[in-house]
């Protein structure tokens, strides 16, 4: 069992937990992910790593309720435990292996969207700890859904917060901020964008036009997360890659986002049905016109 040391609600439907996981805490790097499982019957849920404390042996995860399993996770409190916690999985961010002096010459722009702010944080923090200050754009739907602002402020070079509805910070999508920054005369050698698939797609369309190489972190459907099942396969350029062992970070300009977004919908009706079952008990037997009811 993997004990939850602390649990905190960051925003509506977004939660943060510090979990005791000695091996993962000792070896994880920015860019990697973990897989958690609440109980015997739960799903294996892949989650990006938000932070880690090697001394305390804890890994910090942040997640958003998107279905029945994450709903169940949200019910866990400090002192409770996950039945399973595996990781780190996937490859570390490329810059971890780069020459620090060369890296210092680079101007890096991070673009974080929604709950994607969580996996961006350890990357910016790592760079900060190595004497590199990166610019960070954080986008949220509205003020209430903005997470980790102070934490990010402490490690980012310039932090630009934007909300879709203008309720806080700048007004508009992250892509607008990128355009504004570039128009203001900023230049970037690299962009790292993590957030909803649709956001990453539009960031990539823009940065391609602006000629800024862009890395994205993909979060497709996964089962084992160790290269065994192939559920997480993606088309990257002419190749088929497995996000769990080849990624999760890829060259965003090569990703087939249309296909990736379709694949992400694969179990949507099943997940919706499970969610309704969880919320309403076993009362959902069709009639919503969408799912055909419980078979």
């Amino acid at each position: 069992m993997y004990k939850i040391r602390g649990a905190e609600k960051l925003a509506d439907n977004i939660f943060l937990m510090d979990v005791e996981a000695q091996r993962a805490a000792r070896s994880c790097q920015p860019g990697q992910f973990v897989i958690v499982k609440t109980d015997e019957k739960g799903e294996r849920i892949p989650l990006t790593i938000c932070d880690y404390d090697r001394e305390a042996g804890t890994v910090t995860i942040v997640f958003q309720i998107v279905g029945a399993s994450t709903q169940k996770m949200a019910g866990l409190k400090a002192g409770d435990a996950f039945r399973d916690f595996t990781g780190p999985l996937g490859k570390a961010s490329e810059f971890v292996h780069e020459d620090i002096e060369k890296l210092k010459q680079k101007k890096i722009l991070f673009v974080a969207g929604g709950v994607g702010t969580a996996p961006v944080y350890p990357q910016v923090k790592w760079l900060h700890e190595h004497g590199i200050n990166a610019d960070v754009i954080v986008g949220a739907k509205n003020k209430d859904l903005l997470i980790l602002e102070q934490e990010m402020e402490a490690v980012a070079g310039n932090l630009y917060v934007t909300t879709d509805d203008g309720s806080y910070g700048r007004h508009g999508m992250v892509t607008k901020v990128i355009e504004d920054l570039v128009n203001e005369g900023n230049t970037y050698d690299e962009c790292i964008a993590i957030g909803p698939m649709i956001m990453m797609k539009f960031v990539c369309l823009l940065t391609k036009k602006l000629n800024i190489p862009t890395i994205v972190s993909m979060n497709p459907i996964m089962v084992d997360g160790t290269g065994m099942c192939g559920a997480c396969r993606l088309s990257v350029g002419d190749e088929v890659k497995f996000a769990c062992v080849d990624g999760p970070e890829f060259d965003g300009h090569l990703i087939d986002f249309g296909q990736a977004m379709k694949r992400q919908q694969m179990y949507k009706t099943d997940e919706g049905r499970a969610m309704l079952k969880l919320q309403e008990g076993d009362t959902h037997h069709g009639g919503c016109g969408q799912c055909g009811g419980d078979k």
Partner: protein
Amino acid sequence: MARRMEKVPVREQDAKVRATNFEEVCLGYNEEEAVSEAERCLNCKNAKCIAGCPVLIDIPAFIAEVKDGHFEKAAAVIGESSALPAVCGRVCPQERQCESRCVMGIKGEPVSIGKLERFVADWARDNHIDPILAKEKKNKKVAVIGSGPAGLTCAGDLAKMGYNVTIFEALHEPGGVLVYGIPEFRLPKKDVVAHEVENVKKLGVKIETNVVIGKSTTIDELITEEGFDAVFIGSGAGLPKFMGIPGEQANGVFSANEFLTRNNLMKAFLDDYDTPIQRGKKVAVIGGGNVAMDAARTALRLGAETYIVYRRSEAELPARVEEVHHAKEEGINFHLLTNPTEILVDDNGWVRGLKCVKMELGEPDESGRRRPVVIPGSEYEIEVDTVIMSLGTSPNPLISATTKGLDVNRWQCIIADEANGATSKEGVYAGGDAVTGAATVILAMGAGKAAASGIDKYLSSN
């Protein structure tokens, strides 16, 4: 007494009934049937069957005990050679191994060695017979990576020799392919697999789940920081292969590994488990091995009309004869000498059909099997909503990429000495699918066993 030329038939669940459930198909022998089958054994002095067994079970000796009704003694004989008899009795391709060498098979049917092994193992479980423990402990630590057939066998053998053994398993349950790959109806998870794993634990083996070697820690760290004196790699096969045909990334296309893992490890077929699975209406499984049969029979049980699509003929099907027979009985349609060329996709990105061509067998290829060649103009479509690719796997790079001095061949399989499992790195041994590429449970067990004795020799001389 005239010996019967035919095997004592084994009771099975009726094909129509079992096609709708996940209960075990084969019901096994009872005591009476087992004794009567055992009586067919000639107890050959120069028993050829033993050489046909990758773990060299003394087959005539255990059958002789069964004949006399000494089932506990029979279990002890098998236990000397195999840590997983209840598994092997169910999933070994006996017709190509022990039973293929049986003298009785020349004029009639060979002795049903597999079913007898299964009977003995099940009897020992039902009668709570514990494995025999090591007489003395050795003060050496061995790490075993992977808790599948190779790892469990290697760990069990080393523990019986007195070594302090820890297994590291990447998934959340021990058992490897026995839990994620082989379905419940062929290998019950709780009664058979969990029990065999328990027996290995009773020998003193520790199992740490959720540890991905190469990520959570590395082999070099196990040796230098955690004090392991030797390491066995039994990490299994790996990344599923796809055909590279159009439409393969469509929704509704799965690897057999994914489909089976969802069903078996994650128990998606049970309502109270959270992991979803696509219950297709019409499912095509591409491939002809045991994994393809398992996937097809699983899809059938989930309610689908199911097809096997295989490019060679029935004689070349790599699956066990019994699995093919069971699949047919249950109503799976075989499209043999058929090769898919495209997966047809609807406007929303979901599978709507499979485009195939008919094949005929030409000259033998390098594997000795006749190479299938396309019959021109034979293109046709099968209407399906789900396609499951069961084409084998290629090795997982997680361990080889993170272990210094561990050599791999050009297929990225770990290079290991067949006789003792030794790799290019001192103190590191390997066996099973990680070395050979996808093969069988019993071959992996044989390799685990050879490596255990290799490790024992290495640690005894150090």
